[in-house]
């Protein structure tokens, strides 16, 4: 029992974070927003980093890593607000596909869109070479998301694919953690810079307390996401419960981070001029995606309230 990242995991996380910090800053988001919302250069860079092959076995040209590593990457994607279909393709779809498709994913030549009855909108259908759980239509109907960088399509007929929803909810939760951390950072930076009444607003206790509450929420959501990844990877009987729990906690943390960050930014936060809005809108979008609050609460309630598992102390890491 050692709930720490191992050195390889830390190295992976840091490499992805450093790359995205250097190559995917807010200026990239602004450029994508002003253009067609997608950038081949960004995708090519992610492929060159090897990120499309994270969950692809080495025989297919991938890195052959597991869901814990996928979650670490997803947290960084959330922190950088990456919108290329990397999460859906590489972190959710890849393990569900055949070897030949996995090889194409690792090589960066196949993008995959995900459909599921719980999640009525399909992201990035227009550039996908394959859709899991649904049909490719020749002229999909585009929908406008509040997230300016999210391209949605649908609704079409779709069928549930085994394992898809939990993986997607987990990766969504991880992105919410990364986004929440970034919003806390943006708000903290702003509170250090912005002066009112002759001092940085971050000196005011009211501002400090808001931001501290966000830090608490994020701190206690992150381990839930890691445990859910571990449980799903190992096929634990409680994996579904853990995923829903993680999604709920990550959603709460990110939503609080978003609302607090806009409050700390004041009227500036209510504009397109500061970067915050990109993360805020992604948090709103991911909060409802892959099972909304009601869906995941129902799943937790079924497991906890209805006596399906022993739920007391000493069951924290229980693998039935």
């Amino acid at each position, binding site marked *: *029992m*050692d*709930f*720490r*990242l*191992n050195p390889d*995991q830390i190295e992976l996380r840091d490499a992805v974070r450093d790359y995205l910090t250097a190559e995917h800053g807010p200026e990239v988001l602004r450029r994508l927003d002003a253009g067609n919302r997608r950038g081949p250069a960004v995708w090519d860079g992610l492929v060159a980093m090897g990120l499309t092959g994270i969950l692809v076995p080495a025989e297919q040209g991938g890195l052959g890593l597991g869901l*814990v590593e996928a979650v670490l990457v997803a947290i960084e994607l959330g922190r950088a607000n990456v919108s290329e279909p990397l999460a859906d393709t590489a972190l959710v779809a890849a393990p569900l596909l055949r070897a030949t498709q996995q090889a194409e994913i690792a090589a960066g030549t196949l993008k995959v869109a995900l459909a599921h009855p719980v999640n009525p909108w399909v992201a990035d259908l227009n550039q996908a070479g394959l859709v899991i759980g649904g049909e490719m239509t020749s002229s999909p109907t585009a929908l406008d998301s509040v997230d300016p960088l999210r391209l949605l399509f649908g609704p079409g007929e779709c069928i549930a694919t085994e394992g898809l929803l939990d993986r997607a909810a987990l990766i969504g939760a991880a992105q919410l953690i990364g986004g929440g951390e970034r919003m*806390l950072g943006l708000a*903290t930076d702003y*509170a*250090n810079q912005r002066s009112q009444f002759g*001092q*940085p607003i*971050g*000196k005011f*206790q009211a*501002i*400090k*307390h808001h*931001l*501290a*509450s966000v*830090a*608490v929420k994020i*701190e*206690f*959501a992150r*381990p*839930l996401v*890691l*445990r859910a990844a*571990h449980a799903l990877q190992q096929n634990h009987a409680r994996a579904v419960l853990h995923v829903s*729990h993680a999604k*709920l*906690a990550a959603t709460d943390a990110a939503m609080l981070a978003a609302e607090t960050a806009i409050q700390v930014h004041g009227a500036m936060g209510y504009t397109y001029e500061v970067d915050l809005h990109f993360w805020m809108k992604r948090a709103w979008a991911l909060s409802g995606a892959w099972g909304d609050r009601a869906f995941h*609460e129902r799943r*937790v*309630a079924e497991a*906890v*309230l209805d*006596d399906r598992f022993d*739920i*007391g*102390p*000493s069951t*924290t*890491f229980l*693998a039935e």
Partner: protein
Amino acid sequence: MNLDYTPEQQSFRTEVREWMAAHVPRAPLETLEGRKGFDQHVAWERALASGNWGMVTWPEAYGGRGLDLIRWLIFEEEYWAAGAPGRANQNGIFLLGPTIMEYGSDEQKARFLTPMARGEVIWAQAWSEPDAGSDMAAIRSRAIRDGDDYVVNGQKTWSSRAAFADWCFGLFRTDPDSSRHHGLSFILLPLDTPGVTVRPIRQLHGETGFAEIFFDNVRVPVANRIAGEGEGWNVAMATAGFERGLMLRSPARFQATAKRLVELYRKHRDSASPAASAAVLQAWMDAEAYALNTYAVAAQVMAGGKIGAEASLNKIFWSEMDRAQHRAAMSLLGAAAELRTLPDGEPNAWLEGYIFSLSGPIYAGSNEIQRNIVAERLLGLPR
């Protein structure tokens, strides 16, 4: 990351489980905040010590088992899963004990630790004063050197269970010309020393475990000082870190409460409001989150990391969770929540717990102070 227990950890779990099954008192004890309940709890401390379970992480030389933090967590899980009582000994074993181990002399370790682990000496803390609560550096109680003794004068207040405890530990101003956090020393003294008066304060729930302590020319040997004269502030800050941090509030306690809350929900399912059932779910989820976070912090500490300002995140979380868990129970009980004894004849422990939970966000440094610490030291906002 490895979230599986080793076979040794699992067999340790079995050992604890079996001992607890054989020894935990069947009938619930009376409240720790009253004399009779306190004595029952002290008897339980001694029963625990007879099995060498008084403080499992302590070195064997002091009555412990020298176990690491993961085994400590496993012990706590089995302890609370078995329905074992709250710890009358907690000020000693979780706060003063680690302080003495870090700052005490060999002689002090030999003198104080074993009786503490065995439940033979029950400790109260003497931190706060009427004008120095959250602003602890404002304390005025003095201990002035006179030969081999200090002569202590002043007043401490809000001292948990001082009404029943044997000894207290606290901060006293040993340099009369000093101010703020300078010139303070960390001193231990028996509450039956001549010149000490303990005046119980009746708390919100009507019990009187809480007390004020008055010192009138109380003589305390200099040997009872932990660390150097004038170094008390740093020692007290370390103690406060233990209090906010890992050990004092083990996650298993909240997981056990969450489980009982779910059982209460099942009894009241038909009358539960949607908000109450959501609160029950949240209470369970938060207890789990707290446990995971503690496992994560324990792993860092075992690898040589130190808990600094992160302890404040912990303190905010558990104290607010505790309050929310009990509030959820009160709302499930509905009109019966106000009764001291429930219609089924059981004492209304939820009401008592709710009242006690209100103190959590205040003691051990109020949550306002904790949020300042998080903002300034973890997030880097200006002081």
